[in-house]
Structures are given as structure tokens and as C-alpha cells.
């Protein structure tokens, strides 16, 4: 086991633990902070894989922009932290069962697929080349994403709006 392996597994552990904490925290601010930790971990994994550009994007866009926006929203809306559990423990069981199913299938795949242990070839590239690829080969998807954001904006407006009296039936 060399240094890279040790680094990779320790960071992977960090990601899993902090994401798990983010999902289970009732306090939203704590959850967001754990999620930021998980994003930093992912950024470091990308860096280890030899993709510094993606690592930078991960920090700037996810940990930097999106999560800070989340924090702003939580602080502005002053969402009250529910003290009690959101749903009873017996409703957790289906989720646990589904997750266990994925775990079993994943383990079986790793054990039985001949290509599971194969080393993927490195795909290093310059940011400029990457950008040119995205906007040349997948620009339809990029443009449709802008439409998706418009629809999401309308949705946020309607679903987040407090009900007015005239809209009650």
C-alpha cells in the first residue's frame, strides 16, 4: 500500500462519514457544513486522480457558490429546526433495505464482472480543451439546462410562496 492508496482510502472514509452526517443532522446549518466537508473531500479525490481543474471547480462551484447559497437561504428563511425525528424508525426500514440491496448488487458486480478490476486509462486534458469539448459536443444539453433552470425558478417561486387567502379553495 503506497502513499496514494493511504490518502485515497482515508479521504474516501472522510467523504462517506461527512455525507452520512450531513444526511442525518436535524440542524440544517450543521448539515450544510458537513456537506461542504464532503465536497472538499471529493475535490481532493479528483486532484489525486490527476484532474486539478475538476478539483478547483468542485471547490469553487459546489463548496463555494452553491453551499454558501444554501447557508444564505437557511439563515434568511430562518427555518426552524424540528426537535423530534421527522419520521418514525419503522419508516427507515424500507430505505435501509433498498440501500442494502444496492450494496449487495454492487459487491456482486465487483466480485463477478471481469472488467471490475480493470484500470481505467487516464484522460488528462487542459481546461480550454475541456471547455471546447463541452460547448462543441454537448452544447444541446448545455442549452437545455438553461431552460431547466428557468423552470426550476418558476417552481421555486410557486412552491416556496406562502399561500394567500384568495388561493384557498
Amino acid at each position, binding site marked *: 500500500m503506497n502513499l496514494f492508496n493511504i490518502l485515497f482510502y482515508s479521504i474516501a472514509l472522510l467523504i462517506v462519514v461527512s455525507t452520512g452526517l450531513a444526511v442525518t443532522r436535524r440542524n440544517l446549518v450543521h448539515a450544510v457544513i458537513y456537506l461542504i466537508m464532503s465536497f472538499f473531500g471529493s475535490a481532493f479525490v479528483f486532484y489525486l486522480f490527476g484532474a486539478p481543474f475538476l478539483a478547483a471547480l468542485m471547490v469553487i462551484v459546489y463548496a463555494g457558490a452553491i453551499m454558501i447559497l444554501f447557508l444564505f437561504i437557511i439563515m434568511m428563511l430562518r427555518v426552524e429546526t424540528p426537535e423530534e425525528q421527522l419520521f418514525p424508525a419503522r419508516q427507515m426500514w424500507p430505505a435501509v433495505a433498498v440501500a442494502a440491496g444496492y450494496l449487495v448488487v454492487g459487491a456482486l458486480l465487483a466480485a463477478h464482472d471481469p472488467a471490475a478490476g480493470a484500470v481505467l486509462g487516464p484522460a488528462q486534458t487542459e481546461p480550454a480543451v475541456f471547455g471546447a469539448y463541452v460547448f462543441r459536443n454537448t452544447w444541446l444539453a448545455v442549452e437545455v439546462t438553461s431552460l431547466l433552470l428557468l423552470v426550476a425558478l418558476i417552481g421555486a417561486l*410557486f*412552491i416556496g410562496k406562502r399561500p394567500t387567502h384568495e388561493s384557498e379553495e
Partner: protein
Amino acid sequence: MNGWALFGPELFVFGAALVFLALCLVKSPSPRRDFMVALSLAALVVVAGLAALKAQGTLFAEAYRVDLFSQVFKVLLALGLFLVICLCSRLNGVEARHHPEFYLLLFICTLAMMLLSSAVHLLSIYIALELSSYSLYVLVSLRRARQMAMEASLKFFLVGITASAVMLLGLALLYGATGAVTVHELARILPGAADRPLVQVGLMLTLCGFFFKLAVFPFHVWAPDVYQGAAHPATAFIATASKIGAVAVLVRLAAASEESGTYLAHALVALSILSMTVGNLAAIAQKDLKRMFAYSSIAQAGYVLIGILSMSPDGYAAAIFYCLALLVMKFTGFLVLVAVAFDGANIEIAELAGLHRRSPLLAMALMTSLFSLAGIPPTIGFTGKFLIFNAAIAQGHLPLVLIAMVNVVISLYYYLMVVKAAYLLEPALDPPPMQLPAAVNVLAVALVAFMVVFGVYPQAFIEMARFAAAALLK
């Protein structure tokens, strides 16, 4: 043919959506104006779709394939949009000031479905699918009865994002195993890699995203609540047009993975049986008409899957034909629903009592549509089921077809219960005859004529579906 002409119908729908984006900003609400603009634009979309029917080519760096298959689906989508907007003349389930947003989302969702039917790049397929889902989530939440609409919208959203997550995992596995990013590369690589578990699991999980749209078991749980909670025209859109885009991609992916062995077909057989059985058995217990429609459409999705899992040109053609049939049949049911529930509230099946005296025409339209959904000759629904079962038997799926036939008999029971309510039950107090606008009468007559005439002489549409399926395999 140049790119502008190839992308014509989509650009037109996009332009129409922008018109409503502008109308959203106008201060004074005017439902009449919005309705007339939407109706005329939707009619033009149908014209644009028909004009581009013969278009052929690829766009956007091979990410977008325009062929007869996609163009046929685009015409179906345009037709679905037009018919649904016909239902909006008295859109009183939605507040007047939100009407432009309602039409905006209808047009954007149609655009997304059109993109879906042509997209061959996996990334474009995923983004188009998300666009159509998100517009539907918001569309559901627009209903005036806010509490019910919000609950339905959130349930829809939660099931939807779960399905998306599963689909993304599948796409990642598929990409990791094959390195393919377009459907055509998949079709080239899959025959050699079909027996690898990674590929099988990846394909199956990828298809889950479309099972959600089609409300196939186990992603059907949203359907009853959403059908019940959304405004009637929005439900009609979800029940008719929104299934078409999903069928288009499913057929395209099935055609690409035709050679990938029997695992996929077996999994689809299991899902199809479960969908039919769960949908039909649950539908029997329903009292609310829209919930009944929801479970019935889960069952119908099972029948469509039979056509797809046959994985033969005949099977694909049958699925395309059945899509058209479903569009017309379900829409007729919703036409009656909107006319009877004139105040925009939900109605129970028992409230249909005495419909044959209040409006004989609507009662007949409802009966024809339900008989067609159940697959009784001489309706288009019978022809569609016949084609699907025939294609499945030709591929050796006889047990599946027998189970499907048992299901058809079960479904007959609850369809007949609705017909009984409309024709035989006497209402408690005698309601006055319904005053229907002439346009509704004309539409009802046209739909009934369509279902019967093309049930007896379906040849033209079968030919069209065959050509479309052939274009797919080229």
C-alpha cells in the same frame, strides 16, 4: 436540408413558450386571451410537426437524430398538446393570473418531450427528461386547491428525483463499462458486452428513469396522488402526452440493446406483469374517477412494455400504434371528465349517474373510450392490443400474453362499473341537461369517430408505425 428546418418544430415550440413568458409579465390577467393564443400556437405546432414529418439528418455533433421515428413522435406530442389545450377553455382549476405560466410549462414540457424523442446522446436524453419532469412538478402545483396540489407535487418530485438518481447511477455504470455516450455507440458495443453483469445492471437502472415517467411498477406510486391533485387539464397532459416521450426513448434504447441477451427482456417481462396486475387490481377499489384513470394508466403502461420487450420491428410498430391509441382514448375520458366536473373539482365515479340523460353524446364518448381502453372490438384499443400481443407471441412470449389477457378481463370490470354509473344508475336528484359548447360536441364526435373508424380500418396508421420503426433500426 439545413439545420434550421430539421429543428423547426422544436424551435417553434420554444418560440411559443417565449410568447407565454412575455404574457406572464403582463399585469392584467385575461384567461380568454391566453387560451386563444395557446390554442392557435398549439395548432401551428401540429402544422409545424406535420411539415417536418419527412425531415432527416443529425444535429448538434451527432447528439440529435431527426428521422421518421422521432418525427412521428413529435407529431403525436403536438397533437397531444393541442388536444390538452382544447380542455383549457374554462381553466378554473388554476387561478386566472397563473394561466400564462400554466401554458408556458405545457409548451416547455412538450419541447422537452420532443427533444427526448430525437436525442441520442445519453447526456441530452437525461437533461431533456429532467426538463420534462420539472415542468410537470410545477404544473401539478399550480392548482387552486393548494394543499392537495402541493402534496401531490412534492410526492411527484420525491419519487422523480429518486428515479433520476437511480438512472444516473445506471448511466455511470453503463459509461464505465462501455465508454459509450450515444445510443448508436451503445448499439455497436452492446452485442459484444451483453453478458457482462455491469452492462446488464447499468442498462436496467438507466431504464428506471423512463419507468418513472411511464408510471411502471415500482415507480408508479406517484400516479394516483398526482392525477388526483393536479388540475384536470394538467392531469390529462400527464396521462397522455407525457407518456409519449418516455415510450420514444424506451423504444430507441430497446432497439439499441436488442442483442444484449435475454436478461433485459426477462426483467421487462416481470415489470410488465407487475404493472398490469397492480394497476388493474388497485383500480377496482377506486371511487375517485381520476384515481381510477391513474391506476388504469399504470396497467396500460404494462401493455406498452409488452410491445417494447418483444424487441422486434413488429413490437416497436405495435408500441407506436398503441401510443397513438392511448393518446386518443385517454384524452376522450378526460374530455368527459372536464365537461362533467365543470367547477374544476374532482368527481367520484358515482357522480356520473344519469350522464346519458344529461348529455347522451358525452356518455357515448365515455363509453367508447372505456371500451377502447379495455380492448373491445371494433375500437382502436382492440387493434392496438391485438398488434402488441401478436408481436409478443411471434417472439415466444405466450405466457406473458396469457397473463395480459387475464388482466384485460380484470380491467373490463372497473371500466364497466364506470359505464354502468353513466348509463344505469339514477341520480338522487334530477340534474338539468348539460349545456355544452358546440366545439366540445364536435370534438367528442370526432374522437368517437376516430376510435371506431381507425379501429376497423387501422391500416394507414399501422403502415406509418412500421415505417417509423424501420427508420429506427436503420
